[in-house]
């Protein structure tokens, strides 16, 4: 896995490269728009991380040019501007996700993994069924079972679980859930998402010996097949 970071602030770029290195990703750094465009054209990367405000050429125009040339590498936009409008503009330019600075590295990692997963599934037939361990979801009949037992979910719980199942094994942050399940681009002051998670957890984990939905402290949640041993994620029970 090799990423391209287009970021003009040297220390921010170094910090980002080091952070990604800790998660096991290698990255090249371009320091302005022209250099970034050049490097993205010449090399094959698995992901582009693009800052919006860049010298010589801004990030969105770099991304637009690359997309116009038919390059389909997943792109994550990093920007200091966090209004919904800026986000829409970024996605319109060809970005796959948009992260507002300052970001938490955990948040960034979670989003990168979601993007890489999406890229891997790109072009596949849309799924009609999702399976994680003994948890099964039928997207057409909207039936959810665990170990053959039917679990009844409210519509929002269904969407929440669907998102977890599509990102099984990946850490999902509260912000990602608010954006993707509720379509809200702001953070409420209360831990409103946590309550929804604990209700979902109650439904899918309570009556089974091994839990699937785990809390990753300081970051978010992860859904794993019950047999998979949790790795570094500390559990934080209900």
């Amino acid at each position, binding site marked *: 896995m090799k990423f391209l970071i287009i970021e003009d602030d040297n220390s921010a770029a170094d910090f980002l490269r080091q952070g990604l290195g800790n998660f096991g990703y290698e990255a090249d750094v371009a320091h302005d728009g022209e250099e970034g465009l050049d490097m993205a054209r010449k090399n094959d990367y698995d992901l582009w991380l693009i800052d919006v405000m860049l010298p010589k050429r801004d990030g969105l125009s770099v991304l637009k040019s690359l997309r116009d040339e038919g390059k389909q590498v997943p792109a994550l936009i990093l920007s200091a501007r*966090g209004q*919904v409008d800026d986000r829409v503009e970024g996605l319109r330019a060809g970005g796959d996700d948009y992260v507002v600075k300052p970001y938490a590295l955990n948040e960034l990692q979670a989003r990168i993994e979601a993007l890489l997963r999406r890229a891997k599934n790109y072009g596949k037939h849309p799924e009609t069924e999702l399976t994680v361990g003994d948890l099964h979801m039928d997207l057409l009949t909207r039936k959810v079972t665990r170990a053959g037992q039917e679990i009844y979910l409210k519509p929002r719980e269904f969407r929440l679980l669907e998102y977890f199942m599509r990102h099984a094994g990946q850490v999902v942050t509260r912000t990602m859930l608010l954006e993707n399940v*509720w379509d809200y681009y*702001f953070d409420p*002051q209360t831990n409103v998402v946590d309550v929804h998670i604990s209700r979902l957890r109650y439904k899918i984990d309570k009556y089974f010996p091994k839990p699937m939905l785990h809390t990753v402290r300081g970051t978010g949640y992860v859904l794993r097949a019950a047999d998979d041993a949790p790795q570094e994620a500390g559990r934080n029970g209900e």
Partner: protein
Amino acid sequence: MPPPLASFLRFFRSTPARLTVGFVSLFLVGTLLVFAYLSFQIKAALIAQIDKALLDQQSLLTVQYRDSGAAGLFRAIESELLSKGKRERNYRILDRNGRVVFEAGELTLPEVKPFKGVQDMRIPPVGGEPGGHARAVSFRLGDRYTVYLAHSTQSIDRTMQGFWMALIQALVLILLVGLGLGYWLGRRFWSQIEAFNQMAMKIVHSANLSSRLPVSGDDEFAALATNMNAMLERIEKLFQGIRQVSDNIAHDLRSPLTRLRADVEVALQQNDPAKYRETLERALEELQKMQEIFQSLLSLGQAEAGSLQIRKKPLDLSALLEDVVELYGPLMEEKEQTLTTRIPPGVTISGDRQLLAQVFSNLFDNAIKYVPAGGVIELAMARRGERVEIVLADSGPGIVPEMRSKVFDRFVRLDPSRTLPGTGLGLSLVKAFVELHGGSVSVSDSRLGGAAFTILLPVQ
């Protein structure tokens, strides 16, 4: 007050002084023009009178000569001069050879040829007598005599001289009175303006915005002073607001910064990796809190400065409220708060989904924070003409009346110890975002015993 002379000199460079001088000069020039025209007309009328008298005399003498001959004529002239005085008139009669046969009167006429009509004639100075002007006629009597008859215009000149003297006296009087009055009025205006100036300088130098201008009478100066006082008051309020906000920012960012710094410093003094980790985790939490405050301040600043792009679209407000209720419902249940809603379906307005969702989310955050377990929260929506009214009422502690106008200000928190979570910016954002939609928000008592927030949004 500056010393009198300096003050006086300064006054002379002032606008009222220049206005006074200008007006007085204008008045003088105008008066002069009027007088010049008048004197021209008067002089012309007086001369016409003399001319008429000369012509009358000519007819009289002609008749006398025809009736009683030269002797009768001379007598008639003598008696005329006796009755009207010699000083102003002169009669000279010449015979056919140009010799003077009769001369009476005290004007010294120059040698002239006969002329027609009434003419102006220069009287040369003779002896001590100064010369002058006269009106004169010449006519023939029969075929023997030529008569020159002259009437001095000296009396007219004297009259006109008197007239001009009176004028000059009047002008001097006008000038003095005008300048005096102008000085008095101008001084009054000037002292008012000086008072304003002094006040402005005082404020500039002392940065004390609590100074006010004195208001007296009800002229335009009083109005100006009143308005400037109103302006000063507004500036003072804004300034206090800014000071308040910066104090609050200082408090809200300084406290976590201080904690953060102390925490990190203490951790560095120890040599315990477990402590390091603990400290770093706490530091991250603090940073997150500061980031929230920062983001809210940014949104607020943008909303209030009008630089926030608002994407108004047809928006199902009923669905939006149901969504927010669905998001917060479980949290309220967890806190044993009862939520009742009255949301009529299909109420559509023009608005920005993200901003309005944040508005109701902030209101719910607030209610959940303050309503104790077992309490009630009630959300109701209703059409009110061209507006939609959304009321969120609760059975919490409520808001005391004197705080109601303040809760929407930045960093105002009802919990003075600031121990409950929150940035103190939630309701400010509510107000800013609602106002971006052309709506309004207010707070009152609710019949549930706590606070009731009422939001009015225009349908279009």
